[in-house]
């Protein structure tokens, strides 16, 4: 049997099945309509199931269902002093103590990870209740002091949320801050004709109200996951 005959045979069997059970003129119209609605129902279920996990998380605010990676042991909120976007000194430990705090080291010229992280956090907070929005402090530390002036950092952060705090400092201050947070210092990774890119930690560190490092969030944390986790951590203190 060649391929052509085989294909025709298979096709005829399928044709018979479809004709007999679906489209035969003797098939009642109600049966055909019920098939259409079954298919629509099936498609709806498929779409719903694919986001079931997220919906479940949104409904159950439990700390054991948090999306971030839990840090073993007690790691204290780091102690470092940098400059905020108004030019004032900002003592991280003192200013953020007792609050759920997200700490991130990045730079405003970052083409992908930094803007996506901040866009997702801002969107998640935007969808959260007032108590959650008010109970979370988001701190961005620029590790590119040459290009990121306080004003530039402010403009960049305002694009996402005017409540986000931007910090910068000298190279040595930034290194101290990164070491205090337990992350390797950022460095220039590639130099281009019109600039350079910086290799930096892609984690966002989350400190809880008891001033400990509780979770680390990698690149790829979804808006729905941020919304769930921040709500759980702020409201179920």
């Amino acid at each position: 049997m060649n391929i052509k005959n085989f294909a025709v045979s298979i096709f005829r069997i399928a044709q018979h099945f479809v004709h007999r059970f679906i489209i035969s003129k003797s098939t009642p119209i109600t049966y055909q309509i019920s098939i259409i609605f079954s298919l629509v129902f099936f498609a709806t279920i498929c779409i719903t199931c694919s986001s079931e996990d997220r919906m479940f998380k949104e409904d159950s605010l439990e700390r054991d269902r948090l999306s971030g990676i839990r840090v073993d042991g007690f790691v204290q909120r780091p102690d470092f002093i940098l400059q905020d976007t108004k030019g004032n000194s900002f003592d991280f430990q003192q200013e953020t103590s007792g609050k759920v705090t997200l700490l991130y080291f990045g730079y405003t010229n970052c083409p992908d990870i930094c803007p996506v992280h901040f866009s997702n956090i801002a969107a998640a907070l935007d969808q959260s209740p007032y108590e959650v929005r008010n109970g979370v402090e988001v701190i961005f530390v620029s590790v590119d002091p040459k290009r990121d002036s306080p004003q530039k950092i402010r403009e960049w952060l305002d694009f996402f949320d005017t409540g986000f705090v931007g910090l910068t400092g000298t190279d040595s201050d930034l290194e101290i801050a990164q070491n205090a947070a337990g992350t390797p210092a950022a460095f220039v990774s590639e130099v281009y004709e019109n600039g350079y890119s910086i290799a930096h930690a892609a984690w966002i560190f989350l400190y809880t109200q008891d001033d400990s490092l509780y979770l680390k969030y990698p690149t790829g944390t979804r808006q729905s996951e941020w919304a769930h986790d921040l709500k759980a951590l702020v409201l179920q203190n």
Partner: protein
Amino acid sequence: MEVSWWCSARPISWSWDPQFFPGIWIVMLCIIGSYIFVYIKSSKKNSSLNSEIATNKEKLSFISGWLLLWIMTDWPIGVLGSGYLLSAHMLQYVIYSLVVAPLLVGGISKPMISYYKDLWIFIPFRFLTSRPFVCFVAFNIVLAITHIPYFTDILKPLQLGQMLIDVLWISAAMLFWSAIGSFDDQSDVSLARAQKLLYIIGITLLPTIPGAFFVFSDFPLYTTYEFATRVFNGLSAREDQMYAGLIMWMGMTPILLIRLAMAFFSWSESESRRAGTID
């Protein structure tokens, strides 16, 4: 200069620098090449008769459908739709399904089909297009499957995956629009036109389901678009998804309403004629 076979979602920043996709060019050339080949072959077979194998209107319809297909598949819309903006993805779907497919189908004349319809390779096509119900179901299954986040997020980063989505969309839409012609084979013209009307009404209702998911969801449904770098400042992934839902609703509705109006007036005319005959 970036060269890839087909558009796909990639973890790099969006750039307006042109990108080249030889795979798309080859497929587009194959489509127009096949049309010209069939046209020439049919013309030769038809040389004994003095009639044109395809009217200028049909040729124009096919060429405009083909050009629009190319525009929607290639850079920049194809690239935006494959990995950056869900609204661009939805625009592609709407244009493929409601503009490109009917233009392509309308450009293939009956004499061109008649020469090749008996080839075994066209048997499944003949079978499907003579059964509008099956085409209706196929069109909606393709709509549902290609919009399930799980599948979309798996297929979009793959060049072959995105190619599969494009091929499925255009094939399902062409089947759908080809099947409309099969209503005309019935002896009762009025009944055929009424069925055609119902067929088009049916297709307007189902896309509102994924459209509603896009508009009313609190968070982005697709990781592909959620983690894509932003193309336009101020357009978040959530807003982009909402616009995609609106394109699904608003974009599809006017185009389908035009088709619906055409089908309705055609049906109403046949009803009037029949009433006149009876009177």
